[in-house]
């Protein structure tokens, strides 16, 4: 379980993370989604004690990171897959960590197999690893101590589509076993595949939070009629925001509101359903763009 309470980080006048609060419960894979520079990595570094928080706090399994006994056995952390000594072999990277965490060499071989690094690849120096292999190595290191919680920064970055689906399976099994996963991404399609719940962050603030399905259904109402131009005009007259799409209108209101206006004005509807035609991606862009423009909107 990860609990973040009013976590804030300021660098001089710049606020990188602005008063974020959320709790990730066991059994879930939560995507921490936001554009580059939104504050995801800073927030994750504060959760793991690498960056001191300006105010607020983060706890893992009820303790702050620095209070944890043998943190490697409780929290698997990967903050940057590229941050490895290029001169060590993949296996050696894990063996050094295994000494510190206090697990056996056979556990090193276990996690190597778990992330799909072959014997030959494990014996190669990290310098010669592709980004995808580094991600697998980083996840192996995070899993080494058989932890309850995983905190992964951009773990799917550099993975091919099969790799992303493999990661979904791995993290899903981890969560089904009672584990807690928080992973960040700046790519929505990645997070859509891997995570079940989302925390969206823009400009250091949380802009949306909830299950993927719930957030998906928030995109307004789609309506299509025999005379869309007239309907759009009527809706605008009623101060309901309307966007024209190729096959109809997307309205920022409940279906009932649209239906009433259409019925009163005797417009024949061909389609009326909740959910916009826009994907989560557009909503993500819209949400983060809103905070980018206004700063305080959330």
């Amino acid at each position, binding site marked *: 379980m990860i609990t973040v309470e009013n976590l804030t980080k300021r660098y001089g006048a710049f606020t990188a993370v602005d008063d974020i609060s959320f709790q990730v419960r066991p059994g879930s894979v939560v995507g921490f989604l936001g554009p580059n520079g939104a504050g995801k990595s800073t927030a994750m570094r504060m959760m793991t004690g690498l960056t001191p928080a300006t105010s607020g706090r983060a706890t893992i399994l009820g303790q702050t990171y620095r209070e944890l006994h043998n*943190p490697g056995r409780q929290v698997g952390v990967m903050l940057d897959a590229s941050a490895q000594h290029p001169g060590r072999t993949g296996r*050696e990277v894990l063996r050094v960590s295994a000494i510190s965490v206090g697990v056996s060499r056979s556990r090193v071989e276990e996690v190597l197999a778990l992330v799909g690094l072959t014997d030959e690849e494990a014996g190669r120096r990290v310098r010669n690893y592709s980004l995808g292999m580094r991600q697998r190595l980083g996840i192996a290191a995070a899993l080494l101590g058989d932890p309850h919680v995983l905190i992964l920064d951009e773990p799917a970055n550099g993975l091919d589509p099969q790799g992303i689906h493999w990661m979904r399976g791995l993290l899903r099994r981890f969560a089904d076993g009672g584990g807690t996963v928080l992973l960040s991404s700046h790519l929505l399609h990645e997070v859509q595949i891997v995570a079940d719940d989302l925390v969206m962050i823009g400009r250091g603030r949380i802009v949306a939070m909830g299950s993927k399905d719930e957030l998906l259904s928030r995109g307004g109402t789609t309506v299509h009629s025999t005379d869309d131009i007239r309907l759009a005009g009527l809706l605008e007259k009623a101060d309901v925001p309307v966007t024209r799409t190729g096959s109809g209108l997307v309205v920022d209101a409940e279906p009932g509101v649209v239906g009433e206006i259409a019925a009163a004005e005797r417009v024949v509807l061909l389609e009326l359903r909740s959910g916009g035609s826009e994907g989560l991606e557009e909503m993500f862009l819209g949400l983060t763009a809103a905070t980018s423009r206004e700063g305080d909107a959330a």
Partner: protein
Amino acid sequence: MSTDTDTTDTTTSAPVVGGGAASTVPTALAGRPGVPFGRTLQAELRKMVDTRAGLWMIIVMTGLAAIILAAFVIWGSAEDATFNGLLEVATLPLAMVLPILGIMAATAEWSQRTGLVTFTLEPRRGRIVVAKALASMLFALVVLVAAVAASALVNVVAGTGTWDLSAAAAGGIVLALMLYVLQGVAFGLLFLNTPIAIVAVLVLPSVWGIATQLVGSLEEIGQWLNLDRVTVPLFAGEMAGKDWAQLATGVAAWVLLPLAIGTYRVLNREVK
């Protein structure tokens, strides 16, 4: 999204995302924070020698010592090839290379960014600093033992066969090497950047030494604050009362001060 937090025992208003309310919450492992120091030390020792850079430093150091010993035996004056004389030349490359190993131990976490892993496995960074300093000194001791063995071998095979190493000189060599290694760690921690730290360790003392010789008014201060000069009697095993005082001030300025500032930096720096 649910804001129902009644099911948790921790009092928090943080909104819950994901997970069923019925799922059991695992508790943190009981025990003292961090990991036992022995494991940290073992990991740090291993990290000194498991990279190509570390391996090459050892090869260069051993090679240099071997070449110097051979040259000394072949071209040096025969009566100087005593055990003490041989050990003196064999430790020369050690005094040069071991501080660099200390620097690399201290800077790697930042220059290679492995600190992201190291400081998450042991968040008490002070312990990592102590482990690095201890590991560097332990490693230096092992290398020194090898140098002693090599010198003894050469002494028997090609030297005078005279065993003239006094206990004071032996202790002096050990202490001096430890101080140089610690200086390397200190400068590594101070700059957290390998090339800058290496240049600083090699150049700064020389610049300071030249300055004290050129500027008359610095002459007296130079005797107290020059690590290279204050370790001369230490290597020779001829430490008198004033020498110890000068050693103390020299070490304070060139080892302890950078060590203190460097440790403060590491403890408070943001790991990125």
